[in-house]
């Protein structure tokens, strides 16, 4: 029992120490993220003065911007840097609009038609074919408007070669910091424990020294002797009924608490962060380079599954970028051997629960981060949410439906507003019924 209390004390102490160390660590990380901020500052497109200078309609430009970022930015910068394809700054002056429309829609057709410019570009960039895009003319024009507005120019460094190195070094530093924190923590703990033991021993020694000195060198009266040679009768304590009852109670409470905790935790893998066969960094791709989630998880807006990208999606960029990296080489090997990459599955919903990504992303308009956490900051992905039914239900109870502009809900909203004052949540549309997820 005593040991139990002692343990709790030491736990408190550990917790205290931990919080100290963590706050140090956080300071260190802040330093790192400041660096990252510096590297990514340029990403903020509104920061440039060029925006006002351009004559385009802001709505068109912003439409173009989102198209550009989702589709083009992987291979092209809006500045003058070469990523996979050429930088597009000033492209509207270099080529005619008609030519560009043809090129974007089907570059191969243009090349095959023998267009001199097209063939030259194709050869210049290692005969790397640009995929065809099924854009309408207006969409392409909006992209061109965005490019000529110059808004994207300053974002170039982030996506450009310098950006890559900057981001990468930040990444490794952050990892280093994290692992260093772990290492320090152990050492600090050991040192502290040693210091404490030394302290206790020293204090005990001092007490016994003082006691001996007093007993030998001083004549003490009866009262003082009693004080100095005090004897504590421990048996009284543990024989007391009250103490025993209390101890038992605490024991039972702790035991029950622990077992409930454990049992509730069975099957919950929150924080599960397995080592993946390829050290893919979401921080680098989604965070630093701002690649749209949908680019790789291509079915997230239209299917039940978000889908893990196939190797050919990786190859869209990595046939050109960082081809020497050992991690990228693993993808090449997989393709050569014709063996798919076996990622470790992190989010494991039980078979009895049906979950559909598109329902939440496309219809519900929920951001990926709501459930998956700060994915753009994760070097190694972990399970952010508990994925328990309680967690699902909580959200369904609280979240108002995304009914804006969706004809499906028009009449339902009217009916709901007529009968109730509360928000029109998922649950109030039957979103907590069993058969919505279990069938």
């Amino acid at each position, binding site marked *: 029992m005593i040991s139990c209390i002692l343990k709790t004390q030491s736990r408190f102490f550990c917790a205290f120490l931990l919080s100290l160390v963590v706050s140090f660590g956080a300071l260190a990380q802040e330093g790192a993220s400041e660096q990252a901020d510096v590297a990514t500052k340029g990403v903020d497109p509104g920061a440039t003065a060029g925006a006002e200078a351009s004559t385009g309609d802001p709505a068109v430009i912003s439409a173009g911007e989102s198209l550009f970022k989702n589709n083009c930015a992987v291979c092209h910068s809006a500045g003058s840097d070469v990523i996979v394809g050429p930088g597009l700054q000033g492209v509207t002056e270099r080529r005619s609009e008609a030519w560009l429309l043809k090129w974007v829609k089907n570059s191969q057709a243009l090349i095959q038609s023998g267009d001199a410019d097209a063939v030259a570009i194709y050869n210049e960039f290692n005969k790397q074919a640009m995929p065809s895009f099924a854009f309408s003319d207006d969409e392409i024009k909006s992209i061109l408007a965005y490019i000529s507005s110059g808004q994207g120019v300053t974002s170039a460094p982030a996506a450009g070669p310098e950006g890559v190195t900057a981001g990468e070094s930040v990444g490794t530093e952050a990892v280093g910091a994290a692992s260093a924190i772990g290492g320090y923590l152990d050492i600090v703990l050991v040192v502290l424990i040693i210091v404490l033991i030394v302290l206790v021993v020293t204090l005990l020694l001092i007490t016994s020294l003082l006691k001996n000195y007093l007993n030998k060198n001083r004549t003490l009266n009866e009262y003082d002797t009693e004080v100095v040679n005090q004897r504590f009768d421990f048996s009284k304590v543990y024989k007391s009924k009250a103490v025993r009852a209390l101890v038992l109670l605490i024991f039972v409470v702790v035991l029950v608490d622990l077992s409930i905790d454990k049992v509730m935790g069975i099957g919950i893998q929150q924080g599960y962060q397995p080592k993946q066969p390829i050290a893919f960094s979401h921080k680098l791709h989604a965070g630093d380079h701002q690649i749209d989630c949908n680019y790789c998880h291509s079915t997230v807006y239209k*299917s039940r*599954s978000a889908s893990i990208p196939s190797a050919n999606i990786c190859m869209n960029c990595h046939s050109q970028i960082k081809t020497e990296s050992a991690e990228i080489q693993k993808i090449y090997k997989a393709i050569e051997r014709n063996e798919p990459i076996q990622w470790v599955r992190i989010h494991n919903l039980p078979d009895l629960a049906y979950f559909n990504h*598109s329902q939440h992303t496309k219809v519900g308009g929920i951001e990926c981060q709501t459930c998956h956490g700060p994915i753009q900051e994760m070097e190694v992905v972990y399970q952010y949410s508990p994925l328990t039914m309680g967690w699902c239900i909580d959200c369904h109870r609280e979240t108002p439906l995304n009914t804006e502009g969706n004809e499906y809900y028009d009449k339902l909203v009217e009916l709901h507003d007529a009968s109730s004052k509360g928000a029109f949540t998922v649950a109030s549309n*039957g979103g907590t019924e069993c*058969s919505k997820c279990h069938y």
Partner: protein
Amino acid sequence: MQDRIKYWKGIEELENAPEFAKHAHNEFPEFLPVNEVEGGESSSNGKTHRRDFLKLLGFSMAAVSLASCEAPVRKAIPYLNKPVDVEPGTANWYASTFFLNGDYNSILVKTREGRPIKIEPNPSSSLTPLGTSSKAQGSLLGLYDINRLRYPLAAEKEAKWEDVDKQIKSRLANVNGKVAFVSTTIISPSTKKLIDEFGSRFSNFEHVTYDPNSASGLLQANGGVIPGYDFSKANVIVGINADFLGTWVAPVPFAKQYIQTRKLNPDSPAMSRHYQFETMLSLTGSNADVRVPIKPSEEADLVKALYNAITGGGAASGPGASAKALAAAVKELKANNGKALVVSGSNDPGIQAMVKAINSALGAEGSTIDTAAPYYVKQGSDADMIRLVNEMNAGSVGAVFFYNANPVYNHPLSAKIVSGLKKVGLKVSFADRVEETSKLADFITPDSHYLESWNDFEPKKGFLSLAQPAISPIFTTRQMQDSLLVWSDQKTDFYEYIRSNWRSVASGDFNKFWEKAVHDGVLENGTSLLKVKSSTAAASTASVKKIQPSAIEAVLYEKVSIGAGEFSNNPWLQELPDPVSKATWGNYVAMPRQMAEEMSVVQGDVLKVTFANNESIELPALVQPGQAPGTVAIAMGYGRELDTMPVAKGLGANAFPIATVADDVVLYTSGVKLEKTNATSPIAQTQTHHTIMDRIVVQENTLAKYKENPKEVTEYVRLATHEGPAKPATISLWDDYEYKNHHWGMVIDLNSCIGCGACTMSCNVENNIPVVGKAEILNRREMHWMRIDRYYSAREHEEKDYATMEHPADNPSVIFQPMLCQHCNHAPCETVCPVAATMHSSEGLNQMAYNRCVGTRYCANNCPYKVRRFNWFAYANNDKFGFNEPMNNDLGKMVLNPDVTVRARGVMEKCSFCVQRVQLGKLEAKRENRRPKDGEIVTACAQSCPTEAIVFGDMKDPESRISKVLARQQGERAFHVLEELNTQPNVTYLTKIRNLA
């Protein structure tokens, strides 16, 4: 309705047999079944020992502590190079075609991540746009059958394709004598052309076509084709031993046509009248207005009488009991000249010649028979096959190929074929497994499954369709056509071959044309590609074969779901109850009540059946109401003894010896001797598992009455209150639900339901319903969410005919009622569940949460419709249920629907109204910012129904089809089953209307 019709589900209920009475009050067997399947010797007394208990306890403790350890690492493996069209989690649909032994269906194949998981009708087809046959639905499982050959066999040993090709080619080069290609009916124009080209290399080549259930006589009488019957144009239909809704010629297109004349349009009520003269109670006979049992030996006389009466104008004097009905039929046929149709299932060319003459005398040609568009679905020539067998025995055949043909099993000359094959130098079979014929072959070069192959079809002149692969071959099989191309040294593959063959029917840019044809699956612009042999042997009305009457005349028939044995190894189809007898897993001797009494046989007694050739088999007896006196009927397709068909092995017996050869024609009847043995073998029928206790469950009335006053055809129960009779729904303890969004409902038209069972099969496939096997069905534990209840009835009070009153079982009327969860608004099951595992949704669905269910079975006890099913066992991953192939091996599991849970042991399950489809349909609408369109969300049963008997939809949408039907039929034909219980079901039935003479 003063004279209420008495309905009964089987003889045992009619006679209230003690066994039936015992079960009637006891829905679930009393005992717990744990030891029955799992127990060994020690626990045979059904008790758990203390030590066992402790062992279990210890084990469960260990299991619990293990469970708290780290969960196993699961892998997520993406494509290496994702195919453009495949998106994980979304289904792709491919148009294709199913054809086997006459059963033609233009289909859509649903694939998920590249695996075909469901077959649905192709609405682009005008022949089969509404639904499919149960066989087409079940054929999907054949793709994932682990017993298929995975490689070619040479002399029963695994071989490489190159080696086999080399050997076959060299042996073909030195072939001595005739080269024969034996197949069942091929309706693929390109395949036929290819076979002819392949044969042109040999000096003596013949393509012999035979059908296990032959229509040779019909073909002979009609110049080598099947007349283009169009039942939809007929006011009077006379069927003579022709089960055209179940197995005869082209059942799915025929059912669609037939039902057009049977659906009741409330604005101008009219129906065709259907006479059926037949030996056994078939699916078609069950739907007839007037049905007369006849013996096979009386058939010729009956047709002759009809022929004389129609063509000669004399009075019809039919044999025996049929005289009265025949006279009535003749009268009506004559009155409906040009709108009448007579069909016969006989294989006798003489009888068919008379039927042809009758039809032309009735002016059917050009109206109820489309002379320009005959059917090609049966082309087998009995004479050719018999001649080939004789040639083989004479030693003049040098090489023989078998494609979709297993004559050693399903031809009456089996013994002669076996002896003949020994004299043939080269025997090659394209069978997908080692079966009775391919076992004797030198080479088996396994054909790919039809879902893995390219093919084209022409079931009816001018109606072309295509089959495209929905998956690449699972094993190293090769489709027959590609094999032929390799052996004839052609560099092209069969895909290119079809394309070039189709150029002749193309218009405009060929690639565009081809893409559209593949996408639609059908091409119906009237162009024709198929070349059929025109029959040379003309049939004469004078040459009718006289079937000698014998004490017991036996008929051999094809089961609706098993075919001629093609689907013997399909557990889904084995467990699908026969539409009429409701028997599963095996064949039996169907005999009339009178014969059973005379022989003092009760159902399940094993009989020794001795055929004309002195061979004998042993099968249990089944007392079948409606079976003609002095006859028995036995189904083909059973008695498989090979290890390559583990599901079928040991089920029933092979009754093909009933079929006899008479003058180059196979007749599916002969005299047999029956002897009672001491053994008994229970028949697994699903029918007697529930009882109706004289309550109003199913309703019917006559067309005359409907015309008189449509408001009086349905009996509505009213409850007595102090204010007078009231509708049960107006008196309630419970509050009503308010439906704001959707209110799903279903209307089932009993007039349109022919009882074929396609819905049950479709439901099984869609909802991962386990196969439980014969033993468990005998224990009344089938799992089908949807069943078709078949009730017999006799109009005893109306006819005042003492003979029928005495024995209502001799020729009863039949009515089918699809029964599924009624999704009651005031559901009795919901209120008794102690853990709220079943409850009502805001869209009117009665939901079932499997993981909440603790298996008390209160809900099933409290369900008045008996539609809830309890999982007595773990049917998945359980060797004891190895025949449950879709859940017990890795390949079989590929057929499971990934959107539906595989239920565990100890939970209740039931129809969910295909909630996965409802949810997906709503989601698709939401993604496109609109409301769901009517008809977009359909349940599996409604989608597969070949007669559109089931309408599913949103009752909240006033424009939906279901709302309109309900609005129109309210107070007329619409009724709820057991309305007096005030369960307020969301499933509404429409009273069956019969067009009684």
